[in-house]
């Protein structure tokens, strides 16, 4: 198992290198330097700035020194907020985004798995159609539509919940978490329904019933593990999706998280910020994919067995 984790970690390194290199080159290829934008700046100021940000060096040297910075955990200074480093910006936004993503994931898994399992127990009955229609609605109602509509209904018309901010007013975390989580809850519901249906038709479920086990035990002990494998496989991509979803949700609800910084940085052409955040996001996503892989292996004894045999 440890060997598996190590080997997957090793494989993650080239992926990250590709991400860093591609991002770096893309950003450097961008037409127009970061300071050529608005007003005319005296050339000596530009030169001084370029020296400060090491833009006067040849590109390979910039690349190498950036890699060196990264290895030390330094994402460099921000172009737009002089005096602040990308590290500080990330450190400020990360806890908020992480909390948002955590709640959203919780919403997604709890609602999704329950709905999917309930639907799969009685396929092609109202007990199946109802949650699955809701799931279809969730998939076809993207977060940038769902969010404003929720705000409109619960925030503005009914005035039940605050419509913006994070941690300032009571209940202001509810709408963002639901907005971000619903779409994934819908996907997870469909996945777990499919997985459970597949498993419930397996021979070993018939065996469990033949042993006279109560239906509760058949479902929870014998079927759930196999049925949730597609959901586990989806967790990695879901996490990546949550991160990009946070762009929208944080913008709608004016939450000072990483996603909003990123979108603002994109508009402001704050290249070091884009570069830094992209690398940071990529690392997170790679790590989460790894985590999802490990869980997938851990719940499947056959895969565990193959791993221990290949040692």
């Amino acid at each position, binding site marked *: 198992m440890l*060997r*598996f984790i190590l*080997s997957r970690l090793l494989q993650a390194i080239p992926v990250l290198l590709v991400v860093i290199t591609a991002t770096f080159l893309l950003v450097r290829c961008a037409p127009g330097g970061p300071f050529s934008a608005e007003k005319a700046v005296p050339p000596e100021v530009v030169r001084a700035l370029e020296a400060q940000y090491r833009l006067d060096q040849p590109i390979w040297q910039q690349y190498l020194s950036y890699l060196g910075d990264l290895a030390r955990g330094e994402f460099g200074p921000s172009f737009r907020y002089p005096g602040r480093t990308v590290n500080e910006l990330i450190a400020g936004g990360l806890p908020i985004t992480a909390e948002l993503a955590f709640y959203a994931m919780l919403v997604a898994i709890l609602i999704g798995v329950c709905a999917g399992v309930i639907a799969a127990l009685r396929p092609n009955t109202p007990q199946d159609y109802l949650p699955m229609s809701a799931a279809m609605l969730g998939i076809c109602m993207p977060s940038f539509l769902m969010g404003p509509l929720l705000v409109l209904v619960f925030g503005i018309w009914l005035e039940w919940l605050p419509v913006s901010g994070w941690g300032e007013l009571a209940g202001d975390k509810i709408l963002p978490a639901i907005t971000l989580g619903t779409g994934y809850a819908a996907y997870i519901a469909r996945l777990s329904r499919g997985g459970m249906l597949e498993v419930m038709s*397996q*021979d*070993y479920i*018939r*065996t*469990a*019933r*033949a*042993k*006279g*086990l*109560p239906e509760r*035990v058949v479902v929870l*002990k*014998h079927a759930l*593990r*196999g049925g949730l494998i597609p959901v586990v496989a989806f967790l990695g991509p879901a996490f990546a999706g949550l991160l990009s979803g946070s762009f929208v949700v944080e913008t709608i609800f004016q939450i000072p998280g990483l996603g909003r910084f990123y979108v603002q940085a994109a508009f402001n052409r704050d290249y070091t910020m884009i570069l830094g955040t992209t690398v940071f996001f990529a690392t997170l996503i790679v790590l989460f994919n790894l985590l999802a892989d490990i869980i997938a292996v851990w*719940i*499947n*004894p*056959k895969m565990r*067995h*193959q*791993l221990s*045999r*290949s*040692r």
Partner: protein
Amino acid sequence: MTLLSVENLAVHFHTRAGQMRAVDGISFSVDHGEILAIVGESGSGKSVACYSLLNLIPQPPGKIESGTALFEGRDLLSMQPDTLRRIRGNEIGIIFQDPMTSLNPYLTVGEQLIEPLLYHRNLNRQQALKRAVTMLDEVGIADPETRIHSYPHEFSGGMRQRVMIAMAMIAEPKLLICDEPTTALDVTIQAQILSLIKALQKRRNIAVIFISHDLAVVAGLADRVAVMKEGRIVETGPVNDIFQNPHSDYTRTLLASIPSGSKPNLPQFCEQPLLVLDRLTTCFPNNSGGWLSRQKADKKAVNEVSLTIQRGEILGLVGESGSGKSTLGRSILQLVPVTRGSVIFDGIDLVGLRQKRMTPLRRRMQMIFQDPYASLNPRMTVFDCLAEPLLYHGLATRRTVTAQVLALMDDVGLARAAIRKYPHEFSGGQRQRIAIGRAIATKPELIIADEPVSALDVTIQAQILALILALVEKHNLTMLFISHDLSVVRYIADRIAVMHRGELVEMAGTETLFANPGHDYSRKLLSAIPALSTNPARSTRPPTELA
């Protein structure tokens, strides 16, 4: 004394295509300590009947329409689901056909074994595990204390079936239902499992319902036999009566369909053999490990096999699963890369032959596959399927091809009107006829038949075997007939080759081998064949209905 008495049971399936009477009003009973065998072909309703007793059929589409099933005076069919649940696995145990899929892959064997005790006997885990270890020991699993913590995939097929038996028996039921418990197993394993079931039945003095398609298996095991066909019981009686004086026509047909005897006359062999294998070896790369693990030695699926096949001969190739017999067949046709050795077909070594030179030779050697569902392209009609080799090899022109395809269909006994139909519209036997038609379309000299009748019911099997024999004679074919079923091979082959773990252990004339097997493994194989101990009055040949 009667333990279970089933009266007028009817189970129907309601599907989009309409209503299907899977079980159509059957009655039978089982006494204490008796083995009742229910015999029938696929679709006869024998499994559905037993599953519906325990409420194990999917409902819908299944529905129990009528009937009573008194188990010690209580009606299984009308009782509350929860009451029935307490009988399942407790007073009635059940063993399923496929041990590979019937155990939960995510739980340890021990965890699954103790469940009946936990939920029916209210034992705690410690007590239950102790009992489970004893039970595993009883069904012949070595080192039960360790093995109880293993997962199902760590057991072989036969061992898994032993675990299944242990699980069905652990709560000491009064009735054990066995649904084709040995069909998925090799013949030597089958013999072991059968004797285990018999021994357990004797020791515990329980009643057994044994469902099977295989009359020979039943003959050595059952006290009474019920024969089912199309949802009805056509005949019931003590085992000897059924085999010696069958009353119904269907039972007689079944008995006659069991391949028996061997080819009477050996064909005259001419000078040059058609096929010579010389130390043929085929390896599969062993890449089960990740890229971090060291490269392990390749697995030798076929190891140094040398043999010759004469023109006009049918050589039977027998062996158990994993013995390499299929790989040998594919290696001859160069469908898998050969590692070493040579395959000399009519004087030409096929190994390493360039594709350009191989293509014309492929016309002269063809293959028939086991699974008639997988061996036909689902999107091609019978016509497309049979016309393709004719047109490709230039044996027909656009103008003559229809007539040639029709002639082929006549040859293999397919109705001409079906020429525009697709494979999924045919039954298994008819599909196999299409596959055979495709194989003989190019007028080949050599045919490799890889378990061509293993997926078929016994009456269909008899028809296809008869067809193969007729075609071999008519077109003077040479055939390598691969099978795990020794009685089929005995019936069809002139000589038999026995394979074990990739090696050829014995090769002899059919009757010589059966009378006097030379190798230990051949002897083991032969003794494992379930035989009709009694010698009923029946023809030595199955009915030769061609169409």
